[in-house]
């Protein structure tokens, strides 16, 4: 099946490995992510601070354009998913906002009234495709590698459309079914600090320390969001200094791990993009992960 895909800005740059692995995994499952043409930034957390209406209008343009190709849209970035979903939530029962949005979008010949279903790729995989079909497609077991699934915030909060807002389990179940050993991870929905890593690094480094500090003896942390990935991965030297213990934990997108289970080539999953180096993980996998 073809799905209209909203990549979002990170997917063109810092998270091009997430983008590549998401597309590759979907193709391996007999589906296709078809990129929405001429999409624009969803506004991230910035638009809301300048203008509430702008934070609705920017994602709404994408939704309006996506109506031409079906009744749903899929995002991979948690922040994009949240912003698109939020348009529907805010428009419901708010004719005043609908009127203002109409006035703005009329300027570009579009209209949107909240009718599109907004999905996150994790949701699509565990509900529509299904864990069973994914396990069937796997060519090797994840062989008991130890993984900590990290969900972060916006994929489950505030909307909690497909999983619990405090203790989600969808990724845990998926990875367990594929043969990974999922460690209990109490910090799995605690915030990574988001943009504070640039604007208030002292605070964000403390938050990342709270997340990585309790993790012992795992082969990787698994994420669903580009900003979480970079905050957890790129500052491990500074965080390790603060914790008084050196850190070198690979932070991998769930789609990359699925791709490895599917036996897809590492270049298709862009494993070489990871700053931590994936050699140790892939070596462990080849030792532990029996081909099926």
């Amino acid at each position, binding site marked *: 099946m073809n799905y209209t895909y909203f990549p979002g800005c990170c997917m063109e740059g810092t998270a091009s490995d997430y983008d590549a692995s998401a597309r590759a995994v979907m193709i391996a499952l007999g589906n296709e992510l078809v990129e929405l043409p001429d999409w*624009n*930034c969803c506004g991230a957390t910035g638009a*809301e*601070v*300048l203008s509430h209406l702008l934070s609705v209008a920017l994602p709404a343009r994408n939704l309006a354009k996506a109506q031409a190709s079906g009744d749903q849209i899929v995002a991979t970035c948690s922040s994009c998913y949240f912003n698109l979903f939020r348009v529907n939530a805010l428009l419901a029962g708010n004719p005043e906002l609908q009127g203002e949005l109409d006035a703005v979008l009329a*300027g570009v010949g579009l209209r949107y009234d909240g009718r599109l279903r907004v999905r996150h790729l994790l949701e699509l995989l565990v509900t529509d495709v299904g864990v069973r079909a994914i396990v069937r497609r796997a060519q090797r077991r994840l062989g008991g590698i130890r993984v900590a699934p990290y969900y972060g915030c916006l994929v489950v909060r505030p909307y909690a459309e497909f999983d619990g807002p405090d203790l989600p389990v969808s990724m845990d179940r998926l990875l367990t079914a594929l043969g990974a050993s999922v460690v209990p991870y109490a910090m799995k929905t*605690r915030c990574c600090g988001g943009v504070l890593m640039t604007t208030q690094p002292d605070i964000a480094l403390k938050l990342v320390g709270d997340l990585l500090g309790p993790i012992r003896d795992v082969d990787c942390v698994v994420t669903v969001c580009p900003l979480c990935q970079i905050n957890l991965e*790129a500052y491990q030297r500074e965080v390790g200094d603060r914790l008084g213990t050196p850190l070198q934990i690979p932070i991998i997108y769930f789609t990359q791990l699925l791709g490895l289970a599917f036996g897809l080539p590492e270049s298709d999953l862009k494993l070489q993009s990871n700053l931590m180096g994936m050699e140790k993980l892939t070596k462990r996998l080849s030792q532990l992960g029996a081909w099926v």
Partner: protein
Amino acid sequence: MPEKAFNLTREMLDHSFAETVAPDREKLLTCIQCGTCTASCPTAYAMDYTPRQLWRLVQLGLRDEALHSRTFWLCTNCYSCTIRCPRGISLTETMAALKRLAIAEDVQGEELAHVSRFYRAFMETVRRHGRNYEPELLVRYFFNTGPLGLVDQAPLGLAMWRHGRISLTPKPNGARAEVETIFRKVAEVDALRSLRSERDQEAHA
């Protein structure tokens, strides 16, 4: 932070404040000061007023005190407080509204300078390209807050580039012109709305 006492006077209180910043004023007024928000907040430890205390300021209408707080600038939009609030108050959205108001009223402060300049740099980049382009965003931001910050970021930037995660030029796209129109239209509608609400207030007075 030690408890702060106020000698409340009529002049200090703005009874329309909750109305201005809360998406649902009636709900905010039902806050029972249980502190679940503060306990759930990952950055509360660094705030001057905890989230719980901030809601009390808003309830009372202590507008200046609330707007000069650093609390809402440290909100990361994680929505932990919102989903746990036993009163179902839209706390995260209220934090955002406080940011907007502080910028609109040109409140000065260190956190505001950094966080709001970042958001501004971000939105300027998006307006110019239709999408975010990370290198331009960082250059814009650090030029406004201290170019030395760019030197700190350089090793990470280089590593990201070596790993193919930063391109030297933005990828061209067909969204630019329409995004510019949307920014312009939003500004018009926003201006019209505030004009109307000013008129309403005058008519009321």
